[in-house]
């Protein structure tokens, strides 16, 4: 027979539960208030305002280059600021630097792990960062000597407790931002490997991130398996805005070129646009016929076009303002896993599970 709980402990337990109940009520009230405040300012839809904008004509975009060389699924790619070099990473553990004009491979590194899910080019063009199932982000300085073993100069920068899903240099070679399957994002000093700031708030794996475009803006956006897109203050580590309208994992987030909005791509087969100053979703890019997830999104230079790479092997091109699809591109023979527009906006590159990368223009 169990003895009854000591009276003091029972009172304490009741008090704690009361506090918990009060906090729950307060958070529910705040959530309702947030929805009301956002709704008050929802006076019109973006596509309605955009009715007076001239419709876009027909687009002819084709594959102009095919980069072959990876032995397995291409998982990630990034452009160099010189607008011609590209770094890509693959499930086979290889990271390759290409000259996209000539399709020549300039460097190749074999990582100690498979599934290199993230890679990024340093702003100087002198190094690349990558990582994946090793839970780390490592930086490799690129040597002019083609024969030099890049792996020898490797620097381990970030350490997470689960896979690395994305990485990105800030405006210099000195700092790297990472996101991970461990549910956090983090900012690191490249030279020392020191953790400068960590970002907690996602309730599940963080899959993607993007840095705000302005050199003065110290914010970034992340998306995760908790269906949330969070905007963070890099200095304080605080989550300043959060958006939860997707119905499944958010695989990709990308800022609109002005920095006032960002787009997201999700396993729910939609892309969405969130305006940061209106603090709400302002557009959904979807069609009944599109049922496969979006793996990656990016804007054209003016922000008028949104390119989405999909798991049904296609690329859909959307009119950001009107919300309509303007083109569908075929070519890859498996999922499109990564997509980035070149720094000068003349082309965009896609990577696919079909082992290749394609340049479109």
């Amino acid at each position, binding site marked *: 027979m169990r003895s009854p709980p000591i009276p003091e402990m029972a009172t304490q337990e009741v008090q704690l539960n009361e506090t918990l109940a009060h*906090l729950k009520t307060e958070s529910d009230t*705040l959530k309702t208030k947030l929805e009301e405040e956002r709704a008050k300012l929802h006076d019109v839809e973006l596509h309605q*305002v*955009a009715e007076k*904008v001239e419709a876009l004509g027909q687009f002819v975009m084709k594959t102009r280059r095919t980069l072959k060389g990876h032995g397995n699924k291409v998982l990630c790619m990034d452009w160099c600021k010189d607008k011609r070099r590209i770094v890509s990473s693959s499930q086979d553990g290889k990271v390759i630097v290409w000259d996209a004009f000539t399709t020549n491979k300039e460097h190749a590194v074999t990582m100690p792990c498979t599934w290199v899910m993230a890679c990024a080019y340093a702003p100087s063009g002198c190094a690349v960062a990558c990582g994946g199932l090793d839970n780390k982000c490592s930086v490799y300085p690129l040597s002019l000597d083609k024969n030099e073993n890049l792996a020898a100069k490797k620097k381990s920068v970030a350490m997470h407790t689960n896979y690395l899903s994305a990485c990105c240099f800030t405006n210099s070679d000195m700092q790297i931002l990472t996101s991970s399957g461990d549910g956090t994002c983090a900012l690191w000093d490249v030279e020392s490997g020191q953790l400068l700031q960590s970002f907690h708030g996602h309730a599940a794996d963080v899959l993607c991130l993007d840095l705000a475009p302005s050199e003065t803006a110290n914010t970034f956006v992340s998306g995760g398996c908790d269906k949330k897109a969070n905007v963070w203050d890099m200095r304080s580590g605080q989550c300043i805005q959060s958006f939860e309208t997707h119905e499944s994992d958010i695989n990709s987030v990308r800022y609109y070129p002005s920095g006032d909005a960002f787009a997201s791509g999700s396993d729910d087969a939609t892309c969405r646009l969130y305006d940061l*100053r209106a603090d709400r979703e302002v557009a959904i890019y979807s069609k009944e016929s599109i049922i496969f997830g979006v793996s990656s999104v990016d804007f*054209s230079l003016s922000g008028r*076009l949104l390119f989405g790479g999909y798991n049904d092997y296609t690329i859909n091109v959307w009119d950001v*303002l009107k919300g309509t699809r303007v083109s569908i591109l075929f070519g890859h023979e498996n999922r499109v896993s990564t997509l980035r527009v070149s720094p000068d906006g003349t082309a965009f590159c896609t990577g696919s599970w079909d082992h290749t990368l394609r340049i479109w223009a």
Partner: protein
Amino acid sequence: MNMSTTNNIAQARKLVEQLRIEAGFERIKVSKAAADLMSYCEQHARSDPLLVGVPTSENPFKDKKPCIIL
């Protein structure tokens, strides 16, 4: 049992703090936000190569012959 309730309280407090920050955000109307997005697109349309297209001779990717450095 006390430990998990204490943890839940800590989590609930964090959530309330976070929500307070978000509720205090200064928002603008969608009509204003939309107008600004449109204005940005319009201002930069002419210099958007994928939008307006550039002549084959000017786009290095459209030139099928690889560059030869002499």
